[in-house]
């Protein structure tokens, strides 16, 4: 891993260590050591590894996040039903709100792995990695990861997904993006779900929800969808098609795809991409070694 390499110095944070140097002696004979690495760098390395798996098999990986009950599982059920002749799906189910989410997916004829998170409030890259062992990625085009229903914790953990899809149901407040900026900033697509209920819920204003999203400097599209009535689902299906095509194209060029906004630590590990070139400028002088991803860790 990168824990010894100090490779996390980026243009954005270089000023924080300049003039300091790695070693600076304090009066008491103690040593101060500049480290500058993401607090989740272990998670981020496993996430990068997951992403390599997905890429190698040309599988698009999507992380679904929302409050509990916003309609993630229902959306998946309807998506599978509509597109099962077009894409081969698999689902990693991390949401324990309803006990039988994985079973609901399997009933649609799609492999689903239930992650038992216990009391965990989020999925991490390690949990997803273990779940991937149970899925034959050669037989899959799109993996959905249904995250734990929670608008706070899941935002901090990269799972190796290519895109984040965040659901905001019209039974919630349209100011949720303003209240949970870290989560909604990370959205590559916002789905305003249960839009069939807009007729009876007149205090939810979709345009206001979208405006709050823009105020987070987020350029992601926002679609109104109803898994129940089917309204708006076509735009979502088209988005899936175009993201799948984009991933294929990127992978064939030896590149990958990442969510537009990522926690800091992940940005700093963007050198974990396939072109694993470590000739990047570290801006400080100590020797460093890389031991990315233990060799022999192959399980195709």
């Amino acid at each position, binding site marked *: 891993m990168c824990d010894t390499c100090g490779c996390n110095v980026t243009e954005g944070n270089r000023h924080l260590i300049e003039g300091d140097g790695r070693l600076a002696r304090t009066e008491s004979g*103690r*040593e*101060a050591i500049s*480290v500058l690495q993401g607090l989740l760098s*272990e998670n981020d390395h496993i996430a990068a590894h997951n992403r390599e798996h997905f890429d190698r098999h040309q599988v698009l990986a999507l992380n679904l996040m929302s409050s509990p009950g916003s309609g993630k599982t229902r959306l998946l059920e309807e998506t599978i039903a509509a597109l099962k002749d077009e894409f081969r799906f698999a689902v990693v189910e991390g949401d324990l709100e309803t006990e039988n989410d994985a079973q609901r997916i399997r009933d649609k004829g799609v492999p689903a792995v239930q992650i038992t998170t216990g009391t965990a409030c989020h999925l991490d890259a390690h949990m997803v990695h273990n779940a991937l062992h149970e899925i034959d990625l050669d037989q899959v085009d799109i993996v959905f990861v249904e995250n734990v229903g929670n608008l706070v*914790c899941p935002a901090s953990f990269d799972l190796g997904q290519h895109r984040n899809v965040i659901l905001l149901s019209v039974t919630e407040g349209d100011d949720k993006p303003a*209240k949970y900026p870290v989560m909604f900033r990370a959205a590559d697509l916002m789905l305003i779900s249960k839009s069939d209920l807009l007729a009876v819920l007149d205090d939810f204003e979709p345009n206001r929800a979208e405006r709050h999203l823009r105020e987070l*400097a987020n*350029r992601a599209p926002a679609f109104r969808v109803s898994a129940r009535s089917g309204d708006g689902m076509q735009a979502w299906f088209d988005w899936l098609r175009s993201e799948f095509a984009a991933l294929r194209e990127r992978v064939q060029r030896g590149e990958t795809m990442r969510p537009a906004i990522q926690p800091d630590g992940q940005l700093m590990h963007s050198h974990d991409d396939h072109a694993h070139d470590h000739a990047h400028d570290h801006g400080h002088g100590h020797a460093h070694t890389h031991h990315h991803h233990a060799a022999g860790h192959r399980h195709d």
Partner: protein
Amino acid sequence: MHELSVCQGLISQVEQIARREDAESVTRILLSVGPLSGVEPQLLADAFPIAAAGTVAEHARLDIESQPIRVKCDTCGAETDASANRLLCGSCGDFRTRLVSGDEMLLMSLELERRERA
């Protein structure tokens, strides 16, 4: 809350560095945690003693510094202050900005005590 998981990740990083540096103990840990990191500094501080118990960092002082939220505008090029749920350009008001700072979640530095060399 996920701050305990974050702290456990921190401690394992600290332990690796301490081992590499042949340190007897870690006396201070400096983090940089921005308002848009998704981590609450206070919750992190609360979780720290639990994660650090029995480790080389057990008696370390944890300092957490913050960074201001700053955005750079793609439209007019200005770099301005912003707030967590209003990341618009402070100069022209456009929403097409990029975050310059404020989402850090970094282990900045460690202070440690070395073992006496024989």
